[in-house]
């Protein structure tokens, strides 16, 4: 399995965990292009914290390396990697 696939798997795992905490109509979907965070996304600020910490933890566990996703500028960017699952997979993979 390539890095991109591994990262996608980690993100999907974290989404499953976050969904345990969300009401049925707020649950996150795993589609690559479905909005995640931002104006059209379902992820609120608490969810974003959980996503960041979950993905960072998953990367540390599976890759034995650390990435830092908790960056205010990163979140605020027009092309923020947290827009969709696909953009997040791409961004995290680029850090490895």
């Amino acid at each position, binding site marked *: 399995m390539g890095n991109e696939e591994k990262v996608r798997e980690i993100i999907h795992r974290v989404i499953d965990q976050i969904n345990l905490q969300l009401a049925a109509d707020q649950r996150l979907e795993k589609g690559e292009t479905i909005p995640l965070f931002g104006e059209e996304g379902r992820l609120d600020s608490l969810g974003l914290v959980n996503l960041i910490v979950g993905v960072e*933890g998953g990367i540390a566990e599976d890759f034995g390396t650390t990435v830092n996703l908790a960056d205010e500028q990163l979140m605020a960017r027009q092309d923020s990697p947290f827009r969709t699952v696909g953009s997040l997979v791409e961004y995290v993979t680029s850090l490895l």
Partner: protein
Amino acid sequence: MNRQMGAADRHRCLLVADFNLGNFAGLLGNDPEEPKVEVIGTPYGQVVPVLAPEGGGWREAPDCCLVWTRPEGVCESFGRLLAEEQVELEAVLGEVDEFAELLLDVAGRVKGLFAAAWWTPFLHRGYGMLDLRPGEGVGDVLLRMNLRLADRLGEADNAYLLDTRKWVETAGPAAFQPKLWYMGKIPFGQQVFAEAVRDLKAGLNGLDGRGRKLIVVDLDDTLWGGIVGEVGWEQLKLGGHDHVGEAFADFQRALKGLNRRGILLAIASKNEERVALEGIAQHPEMVLSLDDFAGWRIDWEDKAQNIADMVAELNLGLQSVVFIDDNPAERSRVREALPEVFVPEWPADPALYPSALLGLRCFDAPRVSVEDRQRSRMYAAERQRWETKRRVPSLQEWLDSLELKVEVEELGAANLPRAAQLLNRTNQMNLSTRRLSEGELRQWAEGSGRQVWVFHVSDRFGDSGLTGLASLERRGKEAQVVDFVLSCRVMGRQIEETMIHHLGQRAGKAGGERLLVELVPTAKNAPCRDFFFRVFQEEGGESRFVWELERDLPLPSHVELRKR
């Protein structure tokens, strides 16, 4: 406020914390296990104003409340201690007392108050080897704070301190994620919250009287290692200098411990009864003896049917039962045939049996009474009674042979805990199935025209303890029976007739002319309806019964009734 919620309803739980409890709230609200919980969230960091009666969350009528705080969040002096300032222990404990007063006040407004014990995720090693030294270590102070809080919460019958340490231990390294704290003011990882949800729900089940009361165990490779019918009891793996044998002995010790706490034990095993019983009686390392079991079915019949029969004989409901068997096929069969029975997944390795049993969250109860601790002995006596019944030809002759004594007394401080427990746990012979805490029951009994009595039952086989409760509310010439509760342990010996005789006498002496009985039907109290239908038959209805007191409600001839 809705404080008299029935067991089947959804709980409404007010969550109060000095940190972001959003993740926990989500898990609690989504958790599919019973009881369902509707979460009433509150803004974090506003513990005192939120807990005040005028705090916003109270408008939503919670029936329970969880308060989860960090020690430095509610005790300013502990915060200074963490910063390595010199702080007097008494100052810290004084703040704990103030916080406890606040919680005790909240306990008066809900059916159950739960507080999470204090834990310090970022304390690291504290003072190292001095951390638990009195007068020096922060860890020592934290332990004393928790002890003081536990002592103070013990002043209320419905306030419970939950053990955060266990949640943290189970979660392991994932318990604390500093980034969650710094970014979201969330001090714990998801696993800690998941464990907390399970413990809170176990507590709520306990408050609802839904704790399990009977463990049915298999024998071969469950209570001991090996198949007794094949190898003989002499070759069973049990105790001795063998790690597998020791694990089975420890599993039996764990069962014995639960039994001492009031959880009944029974056996369902596919075996030759004579061979299996010989093994129990003869094996020198058996921790459990036959007297520890309220009943057994050892034959080659379907286990599910055997369990159902045995549970009916013990006058329990299937929802009271846990079934433990090493065989996945038997577990599956019982799960399918008896969905109300709780059948935990069971580890393949006997070394894990004791922890699997002790980790079950289905035995929580608001308190453990003297009757609970004696329950096993009572059931052993019950078995002897029924053996006598088999030898005695008629029911009346059997009843006459029991030498039944019923002692009645008014509700008071000494019997209140057991009375409330009986009221909250009894389902079958229960007229109204109303659930009240000790304080609520006492308060109700103090109302005008109301009286509550409790009944102690004994016979020549032993003392069944406080097993009956009845209450009257008088309105002019009418006396309404509000509660009529009898433990299933003593049903069928005409204690019911004795209790209604007493109520009739008391209502008549107080000038009453008729006794009114209004049954609140539930899925489980058909025995209560049947009793009133039988006794009040001429005046009977489906759920409303009337008895004109000019007619006698006779005391059964085989019962000696006296005041305690």
